[in-house]
């Protein structure tokens, strides 16, 4: 129960914010934090809990974004259907990728995931007949909930919050369930886990599938929110790094961590955009430098992420008071 209380507060605040906050910029930031937080949480299911460190998760994000955008533009169906299709396709691809990379460990797995996302980038940017190629897809705005044509950012906060809570609950399930314990055992030592009867191979695949489906859902909502799908963005390594980094900064394998990490990263990015926005494409480079430095700092000085760091601080404060 201890770990639930802070999350309840965080999500409650996010849910109530639209009732108080009127500022469009703040609401926009909140929507993005919730979407990036959900994507980081989705990444955390595979990377944090199962130890399957991927730097190719933008592949699943892009699949979700494209599924939603294509279903709307090509077939004029609901983006909600697109979200479901994107999640299904991502699951299927997660199954294949998870199966093929099952025996790869450490850096080999990471490299395989990067390669995979870059293959999808090529498909997305070259298959002009289907994806509109490198021009990307503008998503038409058709007012209504069913069509996700929602101008009111407050509603978007609640939609993104629903996604965030779902991603959070998936992680909480892993915190307390049998499968979660087994997955963590696989992360700690796969052979030892196998020797204790843990079906490590299919658990890893299952974790990747769940992670992929959630990531695709994030991509689908994001595409509808932003209104444009650019293959070079949605399939980029930057985006994959961002998901991973948010989870690592927040606290690997913790349920709330990815959301805290995403809040921090989104804030820093917004600041950088305000400061260096004039540099245009040069901005990408700055993000990567900042990401890289942040990663070094976290791994070196805050190995358990913000959640571990804050928890430690609270404990230190509570200890003398208890005496």
């Amino acid at each position, binding site marked *: 129960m201890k770990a639930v209380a802070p999350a309840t507060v965080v999500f409650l605040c996010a849910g109530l914010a639209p009732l108080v906050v009127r500022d469009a910029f703040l609401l926009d930031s909140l929507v993005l934090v919730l979407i990036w937080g959900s994507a980081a949480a989705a990444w955390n299911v595979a990377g944090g809990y199962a130890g399957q460190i991927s730097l190719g998760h933008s592949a699943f994000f892009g699949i979700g974004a494209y599924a939603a955008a294509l279903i709307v533009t090509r077939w004029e169906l609901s983006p909600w259907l697109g979200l479901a299709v994107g999640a299904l396709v991502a699951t299927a691809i997660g199954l294949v990728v998870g199966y093929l990379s099952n025996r790869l460990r450490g850096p080999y797995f990471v490299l395989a995931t990067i390669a995979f996302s870059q293959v999808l980038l090529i498909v997305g940017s070259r298959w002009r007949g289907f994806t509109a190629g490198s021009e990307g897809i503008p998503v038409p705005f058709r007012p209504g909930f069913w069509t996700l044509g929602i101008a009111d950012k407050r509603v978007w906060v609640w939609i993104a919050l629903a996604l965030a809570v779902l991603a959070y609950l998936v992680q909480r399930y892993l915190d307390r369930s*049998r499968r979660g314990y087994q997955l963590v*055992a696989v992360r700690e*030592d796969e*052979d030892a886990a*196998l*020797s*204790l009867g843990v079906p490590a191979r299919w658990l890893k695949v299952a974790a990747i599938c769940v992670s992929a489906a959630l990531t695709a859902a994030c991509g689908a909502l994001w595409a509808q929110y932003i209104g444009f799908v650019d293959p070079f963005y949605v399939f980029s390594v930057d985006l994959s790094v961002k998901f991973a980094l948010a989870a690592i900064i927040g606290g690997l394998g913790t349920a709330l961590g990815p959301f805290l990490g995403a809040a921090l990263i989104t804030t820093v990015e917004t600041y950088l955009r305000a400061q260096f926005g004039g540099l245009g494409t040069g901005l990408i480079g700055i993000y990567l430098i900042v990401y890289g430095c942040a990663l070094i700092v976290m791994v070196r000085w805050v190995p358990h992420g913000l959640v571990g760091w804050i928890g430690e601080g609270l404990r230190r404060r509570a200890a003398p008071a208890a005496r």
Partner: protein
Amino acid sequence: MSLLSVSGVSKRFGGIVANRGISFDVEPGELVGIIGPNGAGKSTLFEVITGFYRPDEGEVRLDGARLTGLSPDVVCRRGIARTFQKLRPFQGLTVLDNVMVGALTRTTDVRHARERARELVGKVGLAEKAEAHARTLSTGQRKRLELARGLATEPRVLLLDEVTGGVDQRTIPELVRLVRSLHAGGLTLLVIEHNMRVITAVAQRIVALHLGEVIADGPPDQVTRDRRVVEAYLGLAYVP
């Protein structure tokens, strides 16, 4: 019928023959020791039995059912647990959580698994360390932890790779007592052990390996007197 039966197992690594036509049986309730010099192929045999290695020839059966070809997790669920010579506790988890992972192989109920784990942690004498992280344990404590973890999977046969290896001399008697009490409780054990005093004291039967082959198989007093065993392993200085 034998509970565990190893027949004609061979395992090669390139030019090295780590196991060569190894055959022996383990009866229910037996405690069988495996001895042999370093590199004799003892650990490799364990890897073959537990499904981590696939033998080039031969097969392993548990209660008549073939284990060879099954993956290690399935072998465990069939009823074989093991400890590793190079200990591999889940470093970042507490002692209790380590053991829970084993218990969760037999129950889907997390609370039940926790109770069961607590019982076993007590049984191996780690009750005070239950909430400590595995990485903070001494070698002796880690051995107990691996034992408890293996026991939690409710094995029909427990394989121990070097029970007392690398352990502080003073804690050896406790470990021996623990193994004995498990055996007395009806568990079937296959134990690799270098300390001859320990193995002759606990084993009902000893299988001696040398260069991947079985060179002797019988009661401890007979095996320790075997000319080939003395030459290959014990050395002439050994007096039982």
